[in-house]
């Protein structure tokens, strides 16, 4: 999914070479430079309201290099890179009606040694008000960012640009800018900082959303500060071959495997009343709506099955997911979806409601409706492309959706060259869903290597 976005970003960068456009871009960049605050985008409005003492919407992206990381050089690279991303070098503030981002010139953020329990809550007033953290551990560089700053694509741009700068400082030559690696000497483009939702939320109707409570995994909560991670590392070609056998893409196949794992878990629990099993899956809208924004530009879809209708074979689940994706992932329905989302924010009566009331209502809606609408989260960043000069230095990438809002499991997928990594993050003791998931992959002939931070 994200591979297309990457190539699109690359194409746009190349297109911008024309003289006329250069002038236009210079104007835009100057304008971007002058801004001293940023409105939160449509998705970002929600994340701060969900902030609790033990929860923040933090995701984590990491890159595994082939050599040990030098923290002093990494800090230098970070200091050079972050000013290129003004919405990441920012602090979140409260207004009377909305929150907003403002440039943060305090010292930091500082690179720190990685910890066993990543994606910890990120308090807005802590860490010198920065909403990003950078960790290192042996040959791994990890970036944690609050979702109110941007989505995985934006975060990946920061991480890749940081990694490229780091490698250049170490003397690696031939690392070109392009794709996720942006030019740190260039001023940010206005379009990178825009709320792209508002540009494309222009359908003539707001389609209603069908919402039904989904099955929720029952598990024993881990103590605060614990995030259980299980990484599955496998070969892209093996997964692709397995997916092809079922006539599906990798995303559809892995979605189906997760649905199968959740369905099995629900069956094992012998509940009197079964519920539909659904997955919340973010779709990168850059694939459908041209934008180079580094902020949030995703929408959620909910592929699922309803075991109350009868028993599903695995093949039927794959077919169901395949058909669902074909039907829902298209420009028209996605435009309708973001228009529905934007309608609330555009409503003048809602706009003038004080922030604390909005917070209360949004939190209530999310807890009572949105969070119960899915059984697990799954995101696929797709095949990551890096500049040729960087390929030799990188082993693999990892991505974690972060701590789930409720007791459940989140799954994130990313691939680089022939290495596909599936990262599960959960805050419950039981690893049943993960077990069913990986056993299914093994059954389909995929060699899986497991790494975990569990004791």
């Amino acid at each position: 999914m994200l591979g297309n976005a990457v190539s699109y970003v690359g194409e746009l960068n190349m297109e911008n070479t024309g003289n006329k456009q250069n002038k236009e871009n210079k104007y835009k960049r100057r304008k971007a430079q002058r801004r001293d605050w940023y409105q939160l985008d449509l998705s970002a409005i929600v994340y701060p309201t969900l902030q609790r003492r033990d929860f923040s919407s933090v995701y984590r992206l990491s890159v595994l290099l082939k050599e040990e990381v030098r923290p002093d050089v990494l800090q230098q690279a970070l200091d050079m890179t972050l000013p290129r991303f003004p919405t990441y070098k920012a602090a979140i503030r409260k207004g009377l009606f909305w929150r907003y981002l403002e440039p943060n010139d305090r010292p930091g953020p500082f690179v720190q040694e990685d910890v066993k329990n990543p994606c910890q809550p990120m308090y807005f007033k802590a860490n010198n008000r920065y909403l990003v953290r950078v960790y290192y551990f042996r040959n791994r560089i990890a970036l944690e960012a609050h979702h109110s700053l941007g989505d995985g694509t934006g975060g990946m741009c920061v991480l890749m640009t940081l990694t490229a700068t780091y490698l250049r400082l170490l003397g690696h030559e031939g690392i070109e800018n392009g794709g996720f690696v942006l030019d740190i000497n260039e001023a940010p483009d206005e379009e990178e900082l825009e709320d792209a939702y508002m540009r494309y939320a222009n359908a003539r109707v707001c389609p209603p959303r069908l919402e039904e409570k989904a099955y929720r995994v029952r598990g024993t909560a881990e103590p605060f500060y614990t995030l259980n991670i299980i990484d599955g590392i496998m070969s892209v070609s093996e997964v692709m071959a397995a997916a092809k056998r079922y006539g599906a893409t990798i995303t559809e196949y892995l979605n189906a495997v997760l649905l199968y794992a959740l369905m099995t878990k629900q069956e094992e629990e012998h509940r009197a009343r079964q519920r539909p099993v659904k997955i919340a899956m973010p779709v990168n809208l850059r694939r459908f709506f041209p934008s180079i924004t580094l902020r949030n530009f995703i929408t959620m879809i909910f592929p699922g099955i309803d075991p109350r209708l009868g028993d599903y074979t695995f093949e039927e689940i794959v077919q169901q997911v395949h058909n669902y994706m074909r039907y829902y992932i298209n420009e028209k329905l996605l435009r309708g979806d973001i228009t529905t989302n934007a309608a609330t924010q555009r409503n003048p009566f809602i706009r003038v409601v004080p922030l604390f009331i909005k917070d209360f209502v949004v939190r209530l809606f999310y807890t009572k409706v949105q969070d119960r609408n899915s059984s697990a989260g799954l995101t696929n960043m797709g095949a990551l492309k890096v500049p040729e000069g960087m390929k030799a230095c990188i082993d693999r990438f990892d991505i974690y959706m972060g701590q789930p809002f409720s007791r459940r499991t989140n799954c994130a997928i990313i691939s680089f060259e022939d290495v596909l990594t599936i990262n599960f993050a959960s805050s419950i003791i039981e690893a049943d869903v993960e077990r069913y998931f990986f056993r299914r992959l093994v059954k389909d002939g995929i060699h899986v290597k497991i790494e975990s931070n569990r004791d």
Partner: protein
Amino acid sequence: MSYCVNCGVELDASAQKCPLCNTPVWNPGELEKQVSGKDAMPPFPREKSQVETANRKDFGLLMSMVVLATAATCGILNALVFRGTLWSLSVIGACAVLWVILIPVMIYTKQSIYVSLLYDGIVVVLYLYILTFQVGSREWFFGLGLPITALVTFITEVFTVCVCRLPRSFLTVSLYLFTGAGLLCLGLEMLIDWYLMGEIALSWSAVVLTVCAILDIALITMLSRRRLRNEVRRRLHF
């Protein structure tokens, strides 16, 4: 290289058990390494870290200095400029109340809520006592101020204990709230009557108490009957 015998997945060299099914790793070819843990580099760090909390101490210090400066300035003004009455005592008292209320919020956030409430009660009593120097009479303090503050503090403490220690739901919190409100009104009227008339003749508080008692009985019935409780939850869910 070890594999889980149950799951069929390859495990990391440092793994002592399969993270998916907890089956212990037993590799006959690498027994020595497994026992000694040599060459086993875990893929994740072993150290946990704590969340960095926002530093409110600086703000707490600032607020303390502002409160202290206000109290001191008013005291000096009262002593040197506006000397007619002891008006500064009420300002100094108010500053003390504000500071004590701010302690758990800004200065010592780990302070128990029960201790905080007790301190709040004590500082309000002290403030009322300070006011007696301005009014010139202490009768109202011992007859009304002290007992009412003690009653409010006691009921708030009991309410907090119930909310924090007993099972908490929308229905139970409502039960504690109505019980507390009824008892508070009853106590207030008894104290006021005793102070003003020297005898207790209940009137308005009896009405409040009756309403609270009816609501409490309804809530207790709902809590004790699961079917009824579920029905109420279903109809009132939000």
